[in-house]
Protein backbone atom coordinates (compact mmCIF):
# COMPACT_ATOMS: atom_id res chain seq x y z
CA UNK A 1 0.00 0.00 0.00
CA UNK A 2 1.27 3.47 -0.85
CA UNK A 3 1.63 6.14 1.79
CA UNK A 4 -1.32 8.49 2.16
CA UNK A 5 -1.27 11.83 0.35
CA UNK A 6 -2.74 13.61 3.33
CA UNK A 7 -1.93 12.54 6.85
CA UNK A 8 -3.55 14.30 9.78
CA UNK A 9 -3.21 13.18 13.37
CA UNK A 10 -4.56 14.80 16.54
CA UNK A 11 -4.78 18.15 14.86
CA UNK A 12 -5.62 20.97 17.25
CA UNK A 13 -6.06 24.69 16.62
CA UNK A 14 -6.83 27.21 19.32
CA UNK A 15 -7.28 30.96 19.01
CA UNK A 16 -6.79 33.71 21.52
CA UNK A 17 -9.65 36.12 21.17
CA UNK A 18 -9.63 39.62 22.61
CA UNK A 19 -12.41 40.18 25.05
CA UNK A 20 -13.95 43.55 24.46
CA UNK A 21 -15.82 44.98 27.38
CA UNK A 22 -19.09 46.57 26.32
CA UNK A 23 -19.96 50.24 26.55
CA UNK A 24 -18.02 53.42 26.86
CA UNK A 25 -16.04 52.52 29.96
CA UNK A 26 -15.04 49.25 28.35
CA UNK A 27 -13.76 51.08 25.31
CA UNK A 28 -11.75 53.49 27.46
CA UNK A 29 -10.30 50.55 29.36
CA UNK A 30 -9.44 48.91 26.04
CA UNK A 31 -7.09 51.80 25.35
CA UNK A 32 -4.77 50.55 28.01
CA UNK A 33 -5.31 46.86 28.53
CA UNK A 34 -6.89 43.82 26.97
CA UNK A 35 -8.06 40.45 28.16
CA UNK A 36 -8.16 37.32 26.04
CA UNK A 37 -10.08 34.07 26.00
CA UNK A 38 -8.98 30.87 24.32
CA UNK A 39 -11.25 29.21 21.76
CA UNK A 40 -10.67 25.71 20.44
CA UNK A 41 -11.64 25.65 16.78
CA UNK A 42 -10.25 22.23 15.87
CA UNK A 43 -10.02 19.71 18.65
CA UNK A 44 -7.99 16.59 17.89
CA UNK A 45 -8.90 15.72 14.33
CA UNK A 46 -7.28 12.69 12.65
CA UNK A 47 -7.69 11.26 9.17
CA UNK A 48 -5.73 10.34 6.12
CA UNK A 49 -6.47 10.48 2.43
CA UNK A 50 -5.12 8.29 -0.32
CA UNK A 51 -4.17 9.66 -3.71
CA UNK A 52 -7.14 10.07 -6.02
CA UNK A 53 -9.74 10.14 -3.27
CA UNK A 54 -12.56 12.61 -3.35
CA UNK A 55 -13.90 13.45 0.09
CA UNK A 56 -16.56 15.76 1.38
CA UNK A 57 -15.74 17.70 4.49
CA UNK A 58 -18.94 18.83 6.11
CA UNK A 59 -20.18 20.42 9.29
CA UNK A 60 -22.34 23.31 10.45
CA UNK A 61 -21.06 26.89 10.43
CA UNK A 62 -18.35 27.44 13.00
CA UNK A 63 -17.69 23.72 13.34
CA UNK A 64 -13.99 24.09 12.51
CA UNK A 65 -14.27 23.23 8.83
CA UNK A 66 -12.58 26.27 7.41
CA UNK A 67 -9.94 26.28 10.15
CA UNK A 68 -9.00 22.72 9.19
CA UNK A 69 -8.88 23.68 5.51
CA UNK A 70 -6.73 26.70 6.32
CA UNK A 71 -4.27 24.44 8.13
CA UNK A 72 -4.29 21.95 5.28
CA UNK A 73 -3.60 24.70 2.76
CA UNK A 74 -0.74 26.17 4.77
CA UNK A 75 -2.47 29.42 5.73
CA UNK A 76 -2.56 28.55 9.41
CA UNK A 77 -0.18 26.63 11.64
CA UNK A 78 -1.63 23.91 13.85
CA UNK A 79 -1.43 24.52 17.58
CA UNK A 80 -0.52 20.87 18.00
CA UNK A 81 -0.75 17.59 16.14
CA UNK A 82 0.76 16.22 12.96
CA UNK A 83 -0.05 17.43 9.51
CA UNK A 84 1.71 16.17 6.43
CA UNK A 85 0.65 16.46 2.83
CA UNK A 86 2.56 15.05 -0.11
CA UNK A 87 5.64 14.74 2.08
CA UNK A 88 5.51 18.37 3.16
CA UNK A 89 4.41 20.30 6.22
CA UNK A 90 2.04 22.83 4.68
CA UNK A 91 2.77 25.95 6.71
CA UNK A 92 6.49 25.35 7.11
CA UNK A 93 7.04 24.56 3.44
CA UNK A 94 4.37 26.98 2.27
CA UNK A 95 6.12 28.46 -0.76
CA UNK A 96 6.90 25.05 -2.27
CA UNK A 97 3.73 23.51 -1.00
CA UNK A 98 1.42 26.00 -2.72
CA UNK A 99 2.68 24.71 -6.07
CA UNK A 100 1.27 21.30 -5.21
CA UNK A 101 -2.24 22.38 -4.34
CA UNK A 102 -5.11 24.19 -5.99
CA UNK A 103 -7.68 26.11 -4.00
CA UNK A 104 -11.07 27.41 -5.04
CA UNK A 105 -13.14 29.59 -2.75
CA UNK A 106 -16.67 29.73 -4.08
CA UNK A 107 -17.27 33.13 -2.55
CA UNK A 108 -14.08 34.80 -3.62
CA UNK A 109 -12.33 34.63 -6.94
CA UNK A 110 -8.60 34.14 -7.27
CA UNK A 111 -8.61 35.95 -10.59
CA UNK A 112 -7.73 39.60 -10.88
CA UNK A 113 -10.94 41.55 -10.92
CA UNK A 114 -10.31 44.15 -13.59
CA UNK A 115 -8.26 42.35 -16.18
CA UNK A 116 -9.34 39.86 -18.85
CA UNK A 117 -9.50 36.27 -17.65
CA UNK A 118 -6.81 35.19 -20.07
CA UNK A 119 -4.47 37.82 -18.59
CA UNK A 120 -5.07 36.38 -15.15
CA UNK A 121 -4.17 32.98 -16.54
CA UNK A 122 -0.96 34.38 -18.00
CA UNK A 123 -0.06 35.82 -14.61
CA UNK A 124 -0.72 32.47 -13.00
CA UNK A 125 1.39 30.80 -15.67
CA UNK A 126 4.33 32.96 -14.60
CA UNK A 127 3.58 32.64 -10.90
CA UNK A 128 3.54 28.85 -11.06
CA UNK A 129 6.22 28.70 -13.75
CA UNK A 130 4.19 26.60 -16.11
CA UNK A 131 5.89 25.79 -19.40
CA UNK A 132 4.36 27.04 -22.64
CA UNK A 133 3.73 23.48 -23.70
CA UNK A 134 1.85 22.48 -20.54
CA UNK A 135 -0.02 25.77 -20.50
CA UNK A 136 -1.26 25.32 -24.07
CA UNK A 137 -2.21 21.74 -23.42
CA UNK A 138 -4.20 22.50 -20.30
CA UNK A 139 -5.92 25.54 -21.71
CA UNK A 140 -7.13 23.41 -24.58
CA UNK A 141 -8.29 20.72 -22.22
CA UNK A 142 -10.13 23.13 -19.94
CA UNK A 143 -11.77 24.78 -22.88
CA UNK A 144 -13.09 21.41 -23.98
CA UNK A 145 -14.36 20.49 -20.55
CA UNK A 146 -15.50 23.87 -19.28
CA UNK A 147 -16.02 25.85 -22.46
CA UNK A 148 -14.25 28.84 -21.02
CA UNK A 149 -12.86 29.98 -24.37
CA UNK A 150 -15.74 32.39 -24.82
CA UNK A 151 -15.04 34.34 -21.64
CA UNK A 152 -11.30 34.57 -21.85
CA UNK A 153 -11.29 38.10 -23.19
CA UNK A 154 -13.69 39.47 -20.59
CA UNK A 155 -12.72 40.92 -17.25
CA UNK A 156 -13.83 38.82 -14.31
CA UNK A 157 -16.20 41.44 -13.00
CA UNK A 158 -18.35 41.05 -16.10
CA UNK A 159 -18.80 37.28 -15.76
CA UNK A 160 -21.78 35.55 -14.20
CA UNK A 161 -21.19 33.51 -11.10
CA UNK A 162 -21.28 30.24 -13.03
CA UNK A 163 -18.87 31.50 -15.69
CA UNK A 164 -16.58 32.83 -13.02
CA UNK A 165 -16.59 29.53 -11.17
CA UNK A 166 -15.57 27.67 -14.30
CA UNK A 167 -12.71 30.07 -14.84
CA UNK A 168 -11.71 29.74 -11.19
CA UNK A 169 -11.68 25.96 -11.46
CA UNK A 170 -9.48 26.13 -14.52
CA UNK A 171 -7.18 28.64 -12.79
CA UNK A 172 -6.78 26.41 -9.76
CA UNK A 173 -5.81 23.43 -11.90
CA UNK A 174 -3.53 25.24 -14.31
CA UNK A 175 -0.40 24.05 -12.52
CA UNK A 176 -1.76 20.48 -12.33
CA UNK A 177 -1.78 20.17 -8.54
CA UNK A 178 -2.23 16.64 -7.18
CA UNK A 179 -4.49 18.03 -4.44
CA UNK A 180 -7.44 20.34 -4.91
CA UNK A 181 -9.38 22.14 -2.18
CA UNK A 182 -12.85 23.35 -2.98
CA UNK A 183 -14.74 25.57 -0.60
CA UNK A 184 -18.42 25.86 -1.55
CA UNK A 185 -17.76 25.49 -5.27
CA UNK A 186 -21.44 25.46 -6.17
CA UNK A 187 -22.68 28.20 -3.88
CA UNK A 188 -25.10 30.51 -5.60
CA UNK A 189 -25.08 28.57 -8.86
CA UNK A 190 -28.19 27.50 -10.76
CA UNK A 191 -29.01 23.85 -11.37
CA UNK A 192 -27.34 23.65 -14.76
CA UNK A 193 -24.17 25.38 -13.58
CA UNK A 194 -24.01 23.09 -10.56
CA UNK A 195 -24.28 20.05 -12.79
CA UNK A 196 -21.50 21.42 -15.00
CA UNK A 197 -19.19 21.97 -12.07
CA UNK A 198 -19.85 18.52 -10.66
CA UNK A 199 -19.31 16.84 -14.01
CA UNK A 200 -16.04 18.69 -14.43
CA UNK A 201 -14.82 17.73 -10.97
CA UNK A 202 -15.70 14.09 -11.51
CA UNK A 203 -13.83 14.19 -14.80
CA UNK A 204 -10.76 15.82 -13.29
CA UNK A 205 -10.74 13.33 -10.45
CA UNK A 206 -11.03 10.46 -12.89
CA UNK A 207 -8.57 11.51 -15.58
CA UNK A 208 -5.93 13.46 -13.65
CA UNK A 209 -6.33 11.45 -10.43
CA UNK A 210 -6.52 14.72 -8.57
CA UNK A 211 -7.33 14.25 -4.92
CA UNK A 212 -10.21 16.52 -3.98
CA UNK A 213 -11.30 17.86 -0.61
CA UNK A 214 -14.67 19.48 -0.84
CA UNK A 215 -16.44 21.55 1.79
CA UNK A 216 -19.97 22.44 1.01
CA UNK A 217 -23.40 23.10 2.38
CA UNK A 218 -24.96 21.52 -0.66
CA UNK A 219 -25.06 17.84 0.22
CA UNK A 220 -26.02 16.93 -3.32
CA UNK A 221 -22.43 17.83 -4.24
CA UNK A 222 -21.23 15.26 -1.78
CA UNK A 223 -23.73 12.59 -2.75
CA UNK A 224 -22.85 12.91 -6.40
CA UNK A 225 -19.11 13.23 -6.06
CA UNK A 226 -17.72 11.80 -2.88
CA UNK A 227 -17.19 8.23 -1.88
CA UNK A 228 -16.35 9.38 1.58
CA UNK A 229 -17.41 12.08 4.00
CA UNK A 230 -15.75 13.60 7.01
CA UNK A 231 -18.14 15.26 9.39
CA UNK A 232 -16.95 17.78 11.94
CA UNK A 233 -18.77 19.65 14.67
CA UNK A 234 -17.46 21.64 17.62
CA UNK A 235 -13.96 21.01 16.33
CA UNK A 236 -14.23 17.23 16.53
CA UNK A 237 -14.42 14.72 13.77
CA UNK A 238 -17.73 12.90 14.32
CA UNK A 239 -17.80 10.65 11.34
CA UNK A 240 -15.49 9.36 8.68
CA UNK A 241 -16.87 6.94 6.14
CA UNK A 242 -19.22 6.48 3.21
CA UNK A 243 -22.42 8.48 3.00
CA UNK A 244 -24.56 5.38 3.42
CA UNK A 245 -22.82 4.68 6.70
CA UNK A 246 -23.76 8.14 7.88
CA UNK A 247 -27.37 7.17 7.43
CA UNK A 248 -26.97 3.82 9.19
CA UNK A 249 -25.30 5.41 12.09
CA UNK A 250 -27.25 8.54 12.75
CA UNK A 251 -30.66 8.05 11.23
CA UNK A 252 -31.22 4.29 10.79
CA UNK A 253 -34.82 4.51 9.74
CA UNK A 254 -36.98 4.17 6.67
CA UNK A 255 -40.45 5.44 5.99
CA UNK A 256 -42.94 3.05 4.48
CA UNK A 257 -45.81 4.81 2.81
CA UNK A 258 -48.84 2.91 1.58
CA UNK A 259 -52.22 3.64 0.03
CA UNK A 260 -55.27 1.53 0.93
CA UNK A 261 -58.15 0.54 -1.30
CA UNK A 262 -60.77 0.54 1.41
CA UNK A 263 -61.77 3.99 2.46
CA UNK A 264 -63.48 2.48 5.50
CA UNK A 265 -60.13 2.40 7.26
CA UNK A 266 -59.30 5.98 6.45
CA UNK A 267 -60.42 7.43 9.77
CA UNK A 268 -58.97 4.68 11.92
CA UNK A 269 -55.77 4.27 13.85
CA UNK A 270 -53.56 1.60 12.38
CA UNK A 271 -50.81 -0.16 14.26
CA UNK A 272 -48.17 -2.24 12.54
CA UNK A 273 -45.60 -4.26 14.49
CA UNK A 274 -46.28 -2.06 17.47
CA UNK A 275 -45.67 1.18 15.56
CA UNK A 276 -48.48 3.58 15.04
CA UNK A 277 -48.98 4.56 11.43
CA UNK A 278 -49.39 8.19 10.63
CA UNK A 279 -52.52 9.02 8.71
CA UNK A 280 -51.59 11.27 5.82
CA UNK A 281 -55.17 11.55 4.58
CA UNK A 282 -56.83 10.22 1.43
CA UNK A 283 -56.26 6.63 2.50
CA UNK A 284 -52.54 7.13 2.72
CA UNK A 285 -50.52 6.04 5.75
CA UNK A 286 -46.91 6.14 6.76
CA UNK A 287 -44.86 4.06 9.17
CA UNK A 288 -41.43 5.06 10.37
CA UNK A 289 -39.33 1.97 10.95
CA UNK A 290 -36.39 1.99 13.31
CA UNK A 291 -33.95 -0.32 11.59
CA UNK A 292 -32.21 -1.16 14.81
CA UNK A 293 -35.37 -2.80 16.11
CA UNK A 294 -36.80 -4.50 13.06
CA UNK A 295 -36.26 -5.16 9.41
CA UNK A 296 -38.25 -3.17 6.92
CA UNK A 297 -39.16 -6.34 5.04
CA UNK A 298 -41.04 -7.64 8.09
CA UNK A 299 -43.03 -4.46 8.35
CA UNK A 300 -43.87 -4.48 4.65
CA UNK A 301 -44.96 -8.08 4.85
CA UNK A 302 -47.27 -7.29 7.75
CA UNK A 303 -48.80 -4.32 5.99
CA UNK A 304 -49.46 -6.25 2.83
CA UNK A 305 -50.90 -9.21 4.69
CA UNK A 306 -53.22 -7.23 6.92
CA UNK A 307 -54.52 -4.47 4.70
CA UNK A 308 -55.78 -4.07 1.15
CA UNK A 309 -52.74 -2.21 -0.14
CA UNK A 310 -52.91 -0.58 -3.56
CA UNK A 311 -49.51 1.03 -3.59
CA UNK A 312 -46.47 0.96 -1.32
CA UNK A 313 -43.15 2.77 -1.36
CA UNK A 314 -40.10 2.85 0.90
CA UNK A 315 -38.15 6.07 1.52
CA UNK A 316 -34.69 6.32 2.94
CA UNK A 317 -34.07 9.62 4.71
CA UNK A 318 -32.16 11.93 2.40
CA UNK A 319 -28.74 13.11 3.34
CA UNK A 320 -29.90 16.59 4.29
CA UNK A 321 -32.18 15.08 6.85
CA UNK A 322 -29.46 12.88 8.26
CA UNK A 323 -27.01 15.69 8.58
CA UNK A 324 -29.67 17.98 9.97
CA UNK A 325 -30.31 15.39 12.66
CA UNK A 326 -26.62 15.09 13.43
CA UNK A 327 -26.18 18.82 13.82
CA UNK A 328 -29.21 18.97 16.06
CA UNK A 329 -28.01 16.13 18.28
CA UNK A 330 -24.42 17.36 18.20
CA UNK A 331 -23.35 14.07 16.74
CA UNK A 332 -24.52 11.70 19.43
CA UNK A 333 -24.52 8.38 17.67
CA UNK A 334 -27.65 6.37 18.32
CA UNK A 335 -27.05 3.55 20.76
CA UNK A 336 -26.68 0.27 18.99
CA UNK A 337 -26.15 1.88 15.66
CA UNK A 338 -23.62 0.27 13.38
CA UNK A 339 -20.30 2.07 13.74
CA UNK A 340 -18.36 3.23 10.72
CA UNK A 341 -15.67 0.93 9.50
CA UNK A 342 -12.84 3.41 9.72
CA UNK A 343 -10.79 3.15 12.86
CA UNK A 344 -10.17 6.90 13.09
CA UNK A 345 -13.81 7.46 13.81
CA UNK A 346 -13.98 4.85 16.50
CA UNK A 347 -11.23 6.60 18.34
CA UNK A 348 -13.13 9.82 18.18
CA UNK A 349 -16.44 8.21 18.97
CA UNK A 350 -15.47 7.69 22.58
CA UNK A 351 -15.03 11.38 23.08
CA UNK A 352 -18.18 12.26 21.24
CA UNK A 353 -20.64 10.82 23.67
CA UNK A 354 -19.82 13.44 26.22
CA UNK A 355 -21.26 16.09 23.93
Amino acid at each position, binding site marked *: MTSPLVFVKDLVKTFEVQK*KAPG*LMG*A*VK*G*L*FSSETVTLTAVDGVSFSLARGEMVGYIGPNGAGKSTTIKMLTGILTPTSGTLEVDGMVPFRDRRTYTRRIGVVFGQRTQLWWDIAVVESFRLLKEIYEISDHDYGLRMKEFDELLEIGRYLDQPVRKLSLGERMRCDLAASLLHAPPLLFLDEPTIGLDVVAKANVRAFLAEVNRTLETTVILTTHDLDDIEELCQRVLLIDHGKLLYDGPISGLRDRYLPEVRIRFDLKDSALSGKRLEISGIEAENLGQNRFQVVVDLRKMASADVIREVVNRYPVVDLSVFEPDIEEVVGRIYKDHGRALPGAPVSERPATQVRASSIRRG
Partner: protein
Amino acid sequence: MRPYLAFARASFLNLLAYRARYFVGILTYFFNVTVWYYIWKALFSEVPPGGTLGGFTFPEMLTYVATGWVLRSFYFNEIDREIAVQVQEGRMAMALIKPVDYQAMTIVQSLGESVFRAGFFAAPIALVLLAVYPVSLPASPSAALLCGVSGILSALLVAAINFCVGLIAIRTYSILGFLRAKYMVLELLSGLLIPPAFFPEKVRPVLDWLPFLHMNFTPGRIYLGLVSGRAALEVLALQAFWVVALLFLGQVLWRRTARHIESMGG
Protein backbone atom coordinates in the same frame (compact mmCIF):
# COMPACT_ATOMS: atom_id res chain seq x y z
CA MET B 1 -32.60 63.52 17.30
CA ARG B 2 -32.36 60.15 19.06
CA PRO B 3 -31.19 58.08 16.06
CA TYR B 4 -28.56 60.68 15.24
CA LEU B 5 -27.20 60.52 18.76
CA ALA B 6 -26.97 56.76 18.51
CA PHE B 7 -24.89 57.12 15.35
CA ALA B 8 -22.66 59.70 17.00
CA ARG B 9 -22.11 57.39 19.95
CA ALA B 10 -21.25 54.48 17.67
CA SER B 11 -18.58 56.41 15.83
CA PHE B 12 -17.26 57.58 19.17
CA LEU B 13 -16.78 54.04 20.44
CA ASN B 14 -15.29 53.02 17.13
CA LEU B 15 -12.59 55.61 17.45
CA LEU B 16 -11.66 54.56 20.94
CA ALA B 17 -11.05 51.04 19.68
CA TYR B 18 -8.02 52.15 17.73
CA ARG B 19 -5.48 52.75 20.40
CA ALA B 20 -2.34 52.49 18.30
CA ARG B 21 -3.59 55.10 15.94
CA TYR B 22 -4.54 57.23 18.89
CA PHE B 23 -1.09 57.55 20.40
CA VAL B 24 0.69 57.84 17.08
CA GLY B 25 -1.93 60.35 15.96
CA ILE B 26 -1.14 62.67 18.84
CA LEU B 27 2.54 62.36 18.14
CA THR B 28 1.99 63.21 14.48
CA TYR B 29 0.31 66.50 15.23
CA PHE B 30 3.19 67.32 17.49
CA PHE B 31 5.66 66.50 14.71
CA ASN B 32 3.78 68.58 12.18
CA VAL B 33 3.92 71.63 14.40
CA THR B 34 7.57 70.86 15.01
CA VAL B 35 8.46 70.96 11.30
CA TRP B 36 6.76 74.29 10.96
CA TYR B 37 8.32 75.60 14.14
CA TYR B 38 11.74 75.02 12.61
CA ILE B 39 10.80 76.38 9.21
CA TRP B 40 9.43 79.58 10.67
CA LYS B 41 12.36 79.88 13.04
CA ALA B 42 14.72 79.66 10.10
CA LEU B 43 12.68 82.20 8.12
CA PHE B 44 12.39 84.66 11.00
CA SER B 45 16.13 84.48 11.53
CA GLU B 46 16.38 86.29 8.17
CA VAL B 47 14.43 89.32 9.44
CA PRO B 48 15.53 91.69 12.20
CA PRO B 49 14.56 90.65 15.76
CA GLY B 50 10.94 91.60 16.52
CA GLY B 51 10.23 91.94 12.81
CA THR B 52 7.15 90.54 11.10
CA LEU B 53 6.46 88.19 8.22
CA GLY B 54 3.05 88.44 6.53
CA GLY B 55 1.94 90.65 9.40
CA PHE B 56 2.86 88.11 12.09
CA THR B 57 5.62 88.30 14.70
CA PHE B 58 7.43 85.04 15.41
CA PRO B 59 5.45 84.28 18.61
CA GLU B 60 2.23 85.11 16.76
CA MET B 61 3.18 82.90 13.85
CA LEU B 62 4.04 80.05 16.17
CA THR B 63 0.72 80.46 17.96
CA TYR B 64 -1.06 80.59 14.60
CA VAL B 65 0.60 77.35 13.49
CA ALA B 66 -0.20 75.63 16.79
CA THR B 67 -3.86 76.69 16.84
CA GLY B 68 -4.11 75.65 13.20
CA TRP B 69 -3.00 72.10 13.88
CA VAL B 70 -4.98 71.81 17.11
CA LEU B 71 -8.01 72.94 15.16
CA ARG B 72 -7.26 70.42 12.45
CA SER B 73 -7.09 67.65 15.03
CA PHE B 74 -10.58 68.79 16.08
CA TYR B 75 -12.30 69.18 12.72
CA PHE B 76 -10.60 66.30 10.93
CA ASN B 77 -12.91 63.57 9.64
CA GLU B 78 -12.89 61.03 6.88
CA ILE B 79 -16.51 61.08 5.85
CA ASP B 80 -15.46 61.67 2.25
CA ARG B 81 -13.52 58.43 2.24
CA GLU B 82 -16.27 56.57 4.06
CA ILE B 83 -18.93 57.75 1.63
CA ALA B 84 -16.85 56.84 -1.37
CA VAL B 85 -16.01 53.39 -0.01
CA GLN B 86 -19.65 52.78 0.86
CA VAL B 87 -20.73 53.51 -2.67
CA GLN B 88 -17.94 51.54 -4.30
CA GLU B 89 -18.63 48.50 -2.17
CA GLY B 90 -22.32 48.76 -2.93
CA ARG B 91 -23.35 49.38 0.66
CA MET B 92 -24.98 52.72 -0.05
CA ALA B 93 -28.37 51.13 -0.75
CA MET B 94 -28.51 50.36 2.97
CA ALA B 95 -28.13 54.05 3.77
CA LEU B 96 -30.96 54.86 1.39
CA ILE B 97 -33.48 52.69 3.20
CA LYS B 98 -32.76 54.08 6.64
CA PRO B 99 -35.46 56.50 7.76
CA VAL B 100 -33.04 59.37 8.32
CA ASP B 101 -31.60 62.01 6.06
CA TYR B 102 -28.27 60.68 4.87
CA GLN B 103 -26.49 64.02 4.85
CA ALA B 104 -27.76 64.92 8.32
CA MET B 105 -26.75 61.51 9.63
CA THR B 106 -23.26 61.79 8.17
CA ILE B 107 -22.70 65.33 9.43
CA VAL B 108 -23.97 64.53 12.92
CA GLN B 109 -21.75 61.48 12.98
CA SER B 110 -18.75 63.61 12.10
CA LEU B 111 -19.70 66.12 14.78
CA GLY B 112 -19.85 63.25 17.25
CA GLU B 113 -16.34 62.42 16.12
CA SER B 114 -15.31 66.04 16.63
CA VAL B 115 -16.69 66.08 20.18
CA PHE B 116 -14.58 63.04 20.87
CA ARG B 117 -11.59 64.57 19.15
CA ALA B 118 -11.93 67.75 21.19
CA GLY B 119 -11.36 65.77 24.36
CA PHE B 120 -9.02 63.05 23.17
CA PHE B 121 -6.94 64.80 20.52
CA ALA B 122 -7.26 68.57 20.52
CA ALA B 123 -6.96 69.03 24.30
CA PRO B 124 -3.92 66.78 24.87
CA ILE B 125 -2.22 68.12 21.74
CA ALA B 126 -2.86 71.70 22.87
CA LEU B 127 -1.40 70.91 26.29
CA VAL B 128 1.70 69.31 24.80
CA LEU B 129 2.23 72.25 22.46
CA LEU B 130 1.75 74.78 25.25
CA ALA B 131 4.29 72.91 27.34
CA VAL B 132 6.93 72.51 24.62
CA TYR B 133 6.66 75.65 22.51
CA PRO B 134 6.18 79.30 23.53
CA VAL B 135 2.58 79.36 22.31
CA SER B 136 0.39 82.20 23.63
CA LEU B 137 -3.05 81.91 25.16
CA PRO B 138 -6.03 83.57 23.42
CA ALA B 139 -5.73 87.34 23.04
CA SER B 140 -8.71 88.00 25.33
CA PRO B 141 -11.65 86.14 26.92
CA SER B 142 -13.91 87.32 24.11
CA ALA B 143 -11.33 86.15 21.55
CA ALA B 144 -11.37 82.74 23.24
CA LEU B 145 -15.15 82.60 23.13
CA LEU B 146 -15.44 83.74 19.51
CA CYS B 147 -12.62 81.40 18.49
CA GLY B 148 -14.59 78.55 20.10
CA VAL B 149 -17.68 79.45 18.06
CA SER B 150 -15.55 79.78 14.95
CA GLY B 151 -13.94 76.40 15.63
CA ILE B 152 -17.33 74.72 15.80
CA LEU B 153 -18.29 76.42 12.55
CA SER B 154 -15.00 75.11 11.08
CA ALA B 155 -15.93 71.58 12.03
CA LEU B 156 -19.32 72.01 10.37
CA LEU B 157 -17.70 73.56 7.33
CA VAL B 158 -15.18 70.75 6.97
CA ALA B 159 -17.91 68.14 7.39
CA ALA B 160 -19.98 69.89 4.73
CA ILE B 161 -16.98 70.12 2.39
CA ASN B 162 -15.98 66.51 2.92
CA PHE B 163 -19.53 65.35 2.30
CA CYS B 164 -19.40 67.04 -1.11
CA VAL B 165 -15.89 65.77 -1.79
CA GLY B 166 -16.95 62.20 -0.99
CA LEU B 167 -19.80 62.39 -3.46
CA ILE B 168 -17.43 63.71 -6.11
CA ALA B 169 -14.72 61.16 -5.29
CA ILE B 170 -17.15 58.36 -6.06
CA ARG B 171 -16.74 59.17 -9.70
CA THR B 172 -12.98 58.66 -9.72
CA TYR B 173 -11.25 55.33 -9.93
CA SER B 174 -8.54 55.89 -7.37
CA ILE B 175 -10.39 57.47 -4.49
CA LEU B 176 -7.43 57.57 -2.16
CA GLY B 177 -5.30 59.44 -4.65
CA PHE B 178 -8.05 61.94 -5.17
CA LEU B 179 -8.52 62.46 -1.44
CA ARG B 180 -4.83 62.83 -0.84
CA ALA B 181 -4.72 65.57 -3.45
CA LYS B 182 -7.64 67.18 -1.64
CA TYR B 183 -5.68 67.28 1.62
CA MET B 184 -2.73 68.97 -0.03
CA VAL B 185 -4.85 71.54 -1.82
CA LEU B 186 -6.92 72.33 1.27
CA GLU B 187 -3.88 72.57 3.52
CA LEU B 188 -2.67 75.29 1.20
CA LEU B 189 -5.97 77.11 0.67
CA SER B 190 -7.21 76.93 4.27
CA GLY B 191 -4.26 78.90 5.58
CA LEU B 192 -3.13 75.95 7.70
CA LEU B 193 0.40 75.94 6.32
CA ILE B 194 0.86 79.60 5.43
CA PRO B 195 -1.32 82.62 6.22
CA PRO B 196 -2.94 84.19 3.13
CA ALA B 197 -0.65 87.23 3.37
CA PHE B 198 2.06 85.13 1.73
CA PHE B 199 0.04 84.64 -1.41
CA PRO B 200 0.64 86.96 -4.37
CA GLU B 201 -1.50 90.10 -4.41
CA LYS B 202 -3.51 88.85 -7.34
CA VAL B 203 -4.45 85.58 -5.71
CA ARG B 204 -5.56 87.03 -2.38
CA PRO B 205 -9.02 88.22 -3.49
CA VAL B 206 -9.73 84.79 -4.98
CA LEU B 207 -8.89 83.21 -1.64
CA ASP B 208 -11.21 85.61 0.15
CA TRP B 209 -14.06 84.54 -2.09
CA LEU B 210 -13.53 80.86 -1.41
CA PRO B 211 -14.81 79.08 1.72
CA PHE B 212 -11.52 77.41 2.58
CA LEU B 213 -9.87 80.16 4.63
CA HIS B 214 -12.73 79.72 7.10
CA MET B 215 -11.39 76.30 7.94
CA ASN B 216 -8.22 77.64 9.58
CA PHE B 217 -7.40 81.26 8.98
CA THR B 218 -10.65 82.64 10.46
CA PRO B 219 -10.52 80.93 13.86
CA GLY B 220 -6.74 81.43 13.94
CA ARG B 221 -6.79 85.17 13.58
CA ILE B 222 -9.70 85.51 16.01
CA TYR B 223 -7.63 83.58 18.55
CA LEU B 224 -4.71 85.94 18.03
CA GLY B 225 -6.98 88.98 18.36
CA LEU B 226 -6.04 90.15 14.85
CA VAL B 227 -9.70 90.62 14.26
CA SER B 228 -12.09 91.45 17.10
CA GLY B 229 -15.35 93.14 18.08
CA ARG B 230 -17.81 93.90 15.32
CA ALA B 231 -15.36 92.84 12.59
CA ALA B 232 -15.00 89.44 14.23
CA LEU B 233 -18.76 88.96 14.30
CA GLU B 234 -18.91 89.83 10.60
CA VAL B 235 -16.26 87.25 9.84
CA LEU B 236 -18.21 84.67 11.85
CA ALA B 237 -21.37 85.51 9.92
CA LEU B 238 -19.53 84.97 6.65
CA GLN B 239 -18.19 81.67 7.95
CA ALA B 240 -21.71 80.61 8.93
CA PHE B 241 -22.96 81.61 5.50
CA TRP B 242 -20.43 79.26 3.89
CA VAL B 243 -21.52 76.42 6.18
CA VAL B 244 -25.12 76.84 5.04
CA ALA B 245 -24.14 77.21 1.39
CA LEU B 246 -22.00 74.08 1.39
CA LEU B 247 -24.60 72.06 3.27
CA PHE B 248 -27.03 73.07 0.56
CA LEU B 249 -24.59 72.08 -2.17
CA GLY B 250 -24.10 68.74 -0.43
CA GLN B 251 -27.85 68.17 -0.33
CA VAL B 252 -28.10 68.85 -4.07
CA LEU B 253 -25.19 66.53 -4.85
CA TRP B 254 -26.65 63.85 -2.60
CA ARG B 255 -30.06 63.98 -4.31
CA ARG B 256 -28.33 63.38 -7.63
CA THR B 257 -26.17 60.59 -6.29
CA ALA B 258 -29.12 58.92 -4.57
CA ARG B 259 -31.11 58.97 -7.79
CA HIS B 260 -28.14 57.45 -9.56
CA ILE B 261 -27.74 54.74 -6.93
CA GLU B 262 -31.44 53.91 -7.01
CA SER B 263 -31.37 53.52 -10.76
CA MET B 264 -28.25 51.36 -10.54
CA GLY B 265 -29.68 49.26 -7.74
CA GLY B 266 -26.99 49.90 -5.17
